[in-house]
């Protein structure tokens, strides 16, 4: 089975969408001549020309709003915001405008807009260049938010996002771009709002998304091999709308849950999941739902500090061990 990188999957999906629909165009800083800060758009300017692949000045609020306006007239822009840290400058056009235009004007004008942007730490980019902030978007009605963890899902979700008639925030992660995974079938698509059980398990459920969903799967598989504990892994894939059903079903089965996210722990995505699950599966819970997230500090540049601040496989392992039912634990002492 052929493998491709996350970067290639995005590049392929963008190319296919540009070929499929001439209303689709790309807009963003350095996506053309420079071929993308992270080379996601490599080759596309050459192939489709400057009408379809548009380099912008450093004006995030301006060109995101411009994309929304173009979408109001029926174009289907795919915007790249170089990293999620800069999208903070465009929140007004995203939240006060793109997210509200369809509703506020009584359903007269959809805004079919996709905004791609990578988040995440671990590259020593320090405090202003290492954020996640998914929760800011997931909180807002009128937006859809997706965060795939595999090349296949990235391709499948990018396609459905472009077909969607609403503003979709497509969240990537810097540390995922070089990750390889199965190349999906030519017609593979992933519906927005559907989570995926990436590994079945009996003892507990680990819920995650984006890069941490990949880490969670590795950890779970390793533990399975070592026959330590049977962990079910759910990859959210979409943060808004949330696939409550899949989450509840899994936790009702395992009775234990850990939410694993890269972002700062409090007031994050995990908070909603834990709150919702204790509402919906209270009587099935054998233990409190745990949240594993990063330390709440503006991420420092210095490598040892950065490593100490960010969560990862080690922290997840610890949480799993703490949460493992006594009987199973017993079987190893």
């Amino acid at each position, binding site marked *: 089975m052929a493998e491709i990188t996350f970067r290639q999957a995005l590049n392929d999906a963008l190319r296919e969408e540009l070929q499929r629909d001439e209303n689709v165009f790309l807009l963003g800083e350095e996506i053309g001549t420079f071929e993308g800060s992270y080379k996601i758009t490599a080759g596309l300017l050459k192939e489709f020309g400057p009408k379809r692949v548009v380099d912008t000045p450093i004006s995030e609020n301006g060109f995101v709003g411009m994309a*929304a306006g173009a979408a109001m007239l029926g174009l289907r822009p795919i915007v790249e915001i170089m990293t999620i840290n800069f999208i903070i400058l465009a929140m007004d*056009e995203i939240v006060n405008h793109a997210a509200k235009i369809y509703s*506020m*004007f009584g*359903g007269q*004008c*959809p805004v079919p807009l996709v905004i791609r942007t990578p988040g995440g730490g671990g590259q020593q980019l320090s405090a202003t260049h290492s954020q996640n902030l998914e929760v800011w978007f997931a909180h807002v009605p009128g937006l859809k938010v997706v965060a795939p963890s595999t090349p296949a899902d990235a391709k499948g979700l990018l396609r459905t996002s472009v077909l*969607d008639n609403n503003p979709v925030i497509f969240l990537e992660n810097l540390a995922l771009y070089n990750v390889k995974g199965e190349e999906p079938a030519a017609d593979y698509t992933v519906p927005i709002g559907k989570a995926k059980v990436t590994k079945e398990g009996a003892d507990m459920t680990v819920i995650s998304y984006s890069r941490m969903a990949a880490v969670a799967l590795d950890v779970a598989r390793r533990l399975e091999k070592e026959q330590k504990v049977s962990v079910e892994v759910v990859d959210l894939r979409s943060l808004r709308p949330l696939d409550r059903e899949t989450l509840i079903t899994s936790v009702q089965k395992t009775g234990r849950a850990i939410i694993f996210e890269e972002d700062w722990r409090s007031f994050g995505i995990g908070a909603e999941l834990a709150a919702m699950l204790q509402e919906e599966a209270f009587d099935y819970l054998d233990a409190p739902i745990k949240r594993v997230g990063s330390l709440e500090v503006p991420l420092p540049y210095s490598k040892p500090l950065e490593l100490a601040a960010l969560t990862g496989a080690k922290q997840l392992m610890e949480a799993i061990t703490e949460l493992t039912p006594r009987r199973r634990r017993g079987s190893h002492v």
Partner: protein
Amino acid sequence: MDTQQRTQPTVTDNAGFDQGESRETLLDYYHLMLLIRRFEEKAAEMYTKARIGGYCHLNLGEEATVVGFCAGLEPTDYVYTNYREHGYAIGRGITPEAVMAELFGKVTGCSKGRGGSMHLFDINRHFMGGYGIVGGQLPLATGAAFALAYRDAHEIVGCQMGDGTTNTGAFHESLNLAKIYHLPIVYFIVNNQYGMGLRVDKGSAVGELYRKGAAYDMRSERVDGNDPLAVRDAVRRAAEIARSDREPSLIEAVSYRFRGHSVVDPDRYRPKDEVTQGREHDPVTLFADRLKAAGMIDDAGLSSMEERVEQEVNDAVTFADESPNPPVEGLMDYIYAPDSTDEEGA
């Protein structure tokens, strides 16, 4: 090179009209100006009667800028405005009924009662919305122009804003984008001399706002906002350039806000004599005088026009009054556009 022209506000009590002007059209302009005047006065009254809620900003004193702007564009051109847009909505062909109904929050309103005074919209008339966030409409309008250029369309975009809006980052980013991409758009500043309580020169380093075009090599001019024909002609010049040369323009129409910022603003911060003076240059009466002086209408004609307009405004109120509220069962409609590839909601 300096691409700016400075048009000295022309004295407006001059009776002569150019040959080209047809009586019918001029009377239409006057009718629209008067309709806006009376509509806004009625809106203020309805607000005090609590039939209208939220914020309510009126075009009183700005009728000539509104009518001139609308007349300078073609019917299929796209229009974006700020929240002070009742007149523009009517000027672009939304019925006074649908506008008043929106102010009343009724389902028959042009935004189905969801937008209110600040958020009028009509996709069929290419009236792409009033926007309550200052500057918010500029990037959107710029994007609409981007789409029209992308499709090589005949239509262009007219984007209205207030004087205070020129101090926002969105103004700077939008005008720069429009120029580098050669977009067919006319940015139209209604300089009514105040942003809420802040006089234009207190908030903007340059008091003559058309000069801001220089930072984008953008053609810009200043016109007398009390003369609907001067405004129309400036907008036409700019629209023509947008349509044929694919170049944006910036127009500043100098006007004066007759009342407070919104209906609830007691307007205590402006010098009495300034307000009196401002109101003396009443664009509606000035234009009526010109029409009379030119023998295009007489007092009888004017008063029958008054009656007609009063009727139109009353009909709008009746319609709004008798219209139903949006059904509460429909509250969760329109959050997401259909034909999405997922199930609704979050």
